[in-house]
């Protein structure tokens, strides 16, 4: 039985925690670590100049989709690792098998869901529905509300992402102005949605390699589709570790924003 979560307490990752809070408009600098009172989810009463503005940041659909997705993704990964136990190789029977650090090594039971192959399959194919529907709900909301504009990484974000990278490398002093998210965040949040889509598509390619033969062929055939499907897991896990670490190291206020919708943090939108 697992004693600790797989998505792990954020280990002291060597992230870039931006040592001092950069001056935010008129707000006087304030130690970041001080816990801030959680105000009722209404516009703030008489804002003292010492306090950052409390702003509505995430619609409830975005928050619901985010947390649902966190649970569903964990379930998809764990049931997937259960399925992997049955044949821990990639390639036609007899090999040669594709390069895989875990070739021939089943994952420990605490990392799996389902108990046996059939259990893993049933979890995987049942959770796939809410996983896809949550993704569609989220994307539908972004499209409908126009919020995709603050999330989608576009060509004009490339120089901004470079400026952001320079800032993180301390080669640039001021935090570049940003909208709801900085350009690097846009890159991360855009590519993770793309990864989600790829994991669903490779999933279908593995699920129905004959009926959806064109899709399976697009990924290089059944064995390769299975291989890419497995790779998506490691990118999801890496993303999650960095994502959670950055929340706590750089912008803890964003956690509250993803729960209550209200944000009072260091990175106000300049939009």
């Amino acid at each position: 039985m697992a004693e600790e979560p797989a998505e792990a307490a954020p280990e002291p990752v060597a992230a870039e925690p931006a040592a001092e809070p950069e001056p935010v408009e008129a707000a006087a600098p304030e130690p970041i670590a001080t816990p801030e009172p959680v105000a009722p989810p209404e516009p703030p009463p008489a804002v003292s100049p010492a306090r950052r503005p409390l702003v509505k940041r995430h619609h409830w659909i975005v928050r619901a989709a985010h947390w649902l997705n966190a649970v569903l993704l964990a379930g998809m990964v764990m049931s997937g690792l259960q399925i992997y136990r049955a044949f821990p190789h990639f390639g036609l029977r007899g090999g040669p098998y594709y390069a895989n650090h875990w070739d021939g090594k089943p994952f420990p039971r605490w990392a799996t869901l389902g108990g046996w192959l059939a259990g893993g399959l049933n979890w995987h194919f049942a959770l796939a529905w809410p996983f896809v529907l949550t993704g569609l709900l989220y994307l539908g909301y972004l499209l409908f509300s126009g919020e995709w504009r603050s999330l989608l990484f576009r060509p004009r974000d490339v120089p901004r992402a470079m400026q952001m990278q320079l800032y993180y490398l301390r080669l640039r002093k001021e935090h570049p102005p940003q909208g709801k998210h900085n350009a690097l965040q846009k890159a991360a949040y855009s590519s993770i949605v793309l990864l989600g889509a790829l994991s669903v598509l490779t999933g279908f390619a593995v699920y129905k390699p004959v009926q959806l033969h064109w899709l399976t062929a697009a990924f290089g055939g059944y064995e390769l589709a299975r291989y890419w499907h497995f790779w998506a897991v490691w990118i999801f896990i890496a993303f999650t570790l960095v994502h959670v670490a950055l929340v706590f190291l750089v912008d803890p206020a964003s956690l509250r924003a993803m729960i209550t919708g209200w944000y009072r943090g260091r990175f106000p939108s300049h939009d």
Partner: protein
Amino acid sequence: MTDDRAFSRRDLLRLGLTAGAASLAGACGWQGGPLLPLLRGASRLNDAVGEKVLLGSHRLAPQYPVSARTPERYFPAYSITHPLPELQEPESWALEVGGLVRKPVRLTLEMLQALPRVRYTVKHHCVEGWSAIATWTGVPVSSVAALVEPTAAARYLRFDTFDRGYFNGWDLKSAMHPQTILAYAFNDRPLTAAHGAPLRLYSPIKLGYKLTKYLTKMSFTAERPGGYWEDQGYPWLGGV
């Protein structure tokens, strides 16, 4: 101000970690407990989508050149009986075809081999995740169905075996697919005991556990038959 706050960041962190740990501790290796009926329900839904939406009655599985065959020593062969199920009197074996049909028959191997013949080199998909390529030869199930004339009430097929109670249920749409055959040859030689001699079901549109070996009987039914693995929780349709 500090007294009326609902929770601090630290509390949140603690709550998140505890909930995460609790859900994982509950989940590891977990089959589903009280949620099992829900999972079975979802599996039935997936069966329905797989059969009614995704399955094309005439969509053919891709064929491969003989040179693409998996070396036979790498082509696994599973059975319930160990070492292998074998007939006491192979000469007296015949396939019984009956159930909801107008003209039930008993078909010997010679009779089956005299019926229309299909031969293809296709990829085998096992539920475990492996795949392998081989050549199979046999008579289409649809040709046998034409002989016995199923009644309008027939909606499923049940396949029985001499492998310790192993049996399977199939939807008619998959069974009548042109590539679904009663196979008597593997890689151009008569089936060996390991691969289901004297006769097995084969189709590139189903997972391996649907491809019943050691056949004795094929019956048309109105009710959905279960299956050896399916009754233990594996997806019933098993289509690929």
